[in-house]
């Protein structure tokens, strides 16, 4: 469709401040955090569900791809217009619609920022316990679309464990509520779990009802510094065998510690091969008790320096630095930038030490820095590869390196993504990792979105449209 015609059509739904086909604007929406770049045909910022419905009907009529986007903080290329089309930016749909404390739930529009939601809930003593590192920036819609998790998945699970209901605009423009406002239901297929993590390929989510929990009375943090990565795996296993389930167990390797020190020099973390950061929560008494236990477990398992605190300010400082270590990774090597490839593998807990050693080996083999950190408590590692973006040889090496990382994760019984999603970045691995699942996914996609207008080109789903099934 030509630009003038598209502009005309969009102007029947949106005021001039809420859509654009300007070339410069389109370029700014051609990327997310991933390395991919595809320019859309238009960008719209809906303000309400009705506009989304009208837009979907228009796209359905004219076969225009629609790509929902929260804050563009996704790392898999999920919010990129591979086949052109319209980016649907939910930034303006950022209202918290209803807090129902009696029924432990909150309903929000898709564009609400995660940190804003928890700031709002905090005043009532509640929280949405899934905490991604990008909390200050990412939207709840994006979290649902990508089945995000983050720092506290060990104890609290991931986004899919908290979604009670979704209002979805389906590819033909019909509006559907997929769940229920009660805490559980066995009424039919669990379509909530189907749509959570569907990356915008099945419909557009406009409203989300989330289960919320009371904020724990107290929290404690133990940090331990190790000179042997093998000891870290043992320490983690021993925490679990001591019947302690921490809220979070985070790992930072030598270079990640260095990145934090460069980003926040006042942290002054000691030089070590790796660091463990363990967060405990619960009642005041229990936190004091288990914090001490974890402190001793880390010591007994070889930590050469161990510290613990239950003070909010100190705890918060550590977490704030940890949350941004991914983006700060580039500070360890001048002239290099972080790229999001091979950055979200998840491996069995028993294989963490082996994985860390493999990553070091690969870093040396390719002569590219890899800063490693992640949610060791659930086996989710984030190797941050650094390259010189203006060096073509580095891009070539990056392709090979990320391939090796992903293949290694699959070989040892892991997965190519723990929480960032498949999108474009990992589409080619789905066939290898979960062939039957991909086959079913393609059938489901084709059944719900026969015209393939919902975020086409992602998750290797287009293959379903090329077959004659």
């Amino acid at each position, binding site marked *: 469709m030509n630009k003038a015609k598209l502009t005309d059509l969009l102007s029947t739904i949106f005021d001039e401040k809420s859509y*654009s086909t*300007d*070339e*410069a*604007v389109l*370029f*700014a*929406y051609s*990327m*997310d*955090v991933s390395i991919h770049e595809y320019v859309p045909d238009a*960008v719209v*910022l809906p303000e309400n569900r009705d506009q989304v419905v009208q837009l979907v009907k228009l796209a359905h009529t004219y076969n225009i791809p629609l790509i929902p986007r929260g*804050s*563009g*903080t996704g790392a898999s290329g999920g919010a990129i217009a591979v086949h052109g089309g319209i980016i649907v*930016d939910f*930034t*303006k749909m950022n209202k918290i619609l209803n807090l129902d404390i009696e029924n432990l739930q909150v309903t929000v529009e898709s564009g609400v*920022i995660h*940190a804003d939601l928890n700031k709002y809930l905090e005043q009532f003593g509640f929280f949405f316990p899934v905490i991604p590192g*990008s909390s*200050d*920036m*990412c939207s709840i819609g994006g979290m649902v679309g990508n089945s995000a998790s983050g720092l506290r998945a060990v104890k609290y699970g991931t986004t899919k464990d908290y979604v009670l209901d979704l209002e979805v605009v389906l590819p033909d423009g019909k509006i559907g509520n997929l769940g229920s406002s009660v805490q559980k239901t066995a009424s039919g297929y669990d379509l909530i779990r189907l749509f959570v993590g569907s990356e915008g390929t099945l419909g557009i989510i406009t409203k989300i009802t989330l289960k919320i929990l009371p904020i724990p009375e107290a929290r404690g943090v133990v940090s331990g510094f190790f000179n042997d990565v093998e000891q870290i795996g043992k320490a983690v296993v021993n925490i679990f065998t001591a019947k302690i389930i921490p809220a979070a167990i985070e790992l930072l390797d030598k270079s990640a510690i260095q990145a934090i020190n460069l*980003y926040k020099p006042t942290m002054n973390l000691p030089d070590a091969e790796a660091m463990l950061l363990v967060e405990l929560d619960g009642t005041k008494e229990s936190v004091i008790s288990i914090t001490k236990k974890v402190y001793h477990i880390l010591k007994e398992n070889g930590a050469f320096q161990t510290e613990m605190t239950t003070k909010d300010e100190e705890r918060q400082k550590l977490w704030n630095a940890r949350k*941004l*270590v*991914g*983006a*700060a*990774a*580039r*500070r360890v090597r001048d*002239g290099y*930038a*972080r790229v*999001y490839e091979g950055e979200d593998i998840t491996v069995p807990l028993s294989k963490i030490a082996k994985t860390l050693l493999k990553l070091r080996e690969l870093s040396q083999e390719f002569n590219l820095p890899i800063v490693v950190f992640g949610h060791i408590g659930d086996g989710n590692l984030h190797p941050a590869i650094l390259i010189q*973006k*203006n060096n073509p040889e580095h891009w070539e090496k990056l392709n090979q390196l990320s391939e090796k990382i992903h293949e290694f994760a699959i070989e040892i019984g892991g997965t190519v993504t723990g929480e960032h999603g498949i999108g474009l970045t990992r589409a080619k691995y789905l066939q290898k990792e979960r062939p039957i699942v991909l086959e079913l996914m393609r059938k489901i996609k084709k059944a719900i979105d026969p015209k393939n207008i919902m975020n086409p080109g992602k998750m290797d789903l287009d293959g379903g449209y090329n077959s004659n099934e």
Partner: protein
Amino acid sequence: MGAIIRMNESLLNESLLIDMLKCARCGKCRALCPSFKENKWETSSARGRVLLSLGLMQNKIPMTKRLISDIFSCFICKQCSELCPSAVDVPRIIENTRTLIHKKGLTPSPIQLILDNLDESKNIFNMDQEDRLLWTMNVEELIENRICKPAEIGFFVGCLESFKGSLGVIPEALILIMDALKIDFTILGEEEWCCGNPYFIAGDSRHIANQFAEHNIQKMAALKVKTVVTTCPGCYRVWSSIYPVIYGTLPFQILHSTQLLAQLIAKGELQITNLLPQKIVFQDPCELGRHCGVYDAPRKILSTIPNVRLFDFENSRENSECCGGGGLVKAVHPNLAKLQCQNKIKQYLSNKIDQIITACPSCLDNYLTSLESNPETLTIKDLHELIAELLDLL
């Protein structure tokens, strides 16, 4: 910012490109960017503007009207860079993109008018240089024998305070304080030219600003001043950070007036005994705080006032949000500047602040405009005016 002046173009482009490519696109800046909070478009966030700049530099996009508008909706408040995990120097990138726009003759007309005024009249208002002393009418006797006379301190007044009537109280107050403390000072009067800050912020790369720098430096040097003091954070940033890049080491030290007053308090030469039983907040001017690192001096002054309750928000000092008066945004997007200021006023009202204090003519000007429609319970005052009042000089 000033460092770009001496680089040759290819080196500059290479260093800017590396800076843009550093960006991990994590979006931390998006969460902080004041103009994004209002506009909601990616292109009005720091991350988006870096992408626009990258697209232009790589010749991937044309210089559209929308691009120009978004590049000129940046307050250059530096909040993005302050917290950027990847250490991207966003203000430097924005100013360079403004330079590209200027070279094509596409600078927005309200800003081009300011630049034309500077070219023609050496001040931003296109007034006669003779009118630079209009603000002195209440302190004429105190300065008539001091203009362009050798002295210890050279007070550089700046265009906003010299020509805009509502801001004239700022230099007037400092003159009264310095006179009361028997400080040996001079001013350049009609010989003062604009510091040149608008040229830098607008991305005007014609190097005319260098003439302004040389003129002002030579005038002050001829008076053998040991210290140049300015009440305007914009002038302070230019004198302290950019002039040395253009001119080399300056033959005098540069102080913001709050630093001078804080030094006088520390020496015991300035004492405030009158009470101020109010809850006040200090609006950190972006060019004084994040751009130049001066946070403590104004707080040291204010905290010596008896009975005052100086309130610091979580988002003060390094995390302080721009008042909306920066980056020449007000000239192109006056509503955006006003909305940003009104957002800040709402925060102050909800925290039951009695009075906002600032030490910047742009902040004062923007607050005065934005407070017009707000309750009288909240007022804005310049720090120098406050101190002069407490010393019973005003």
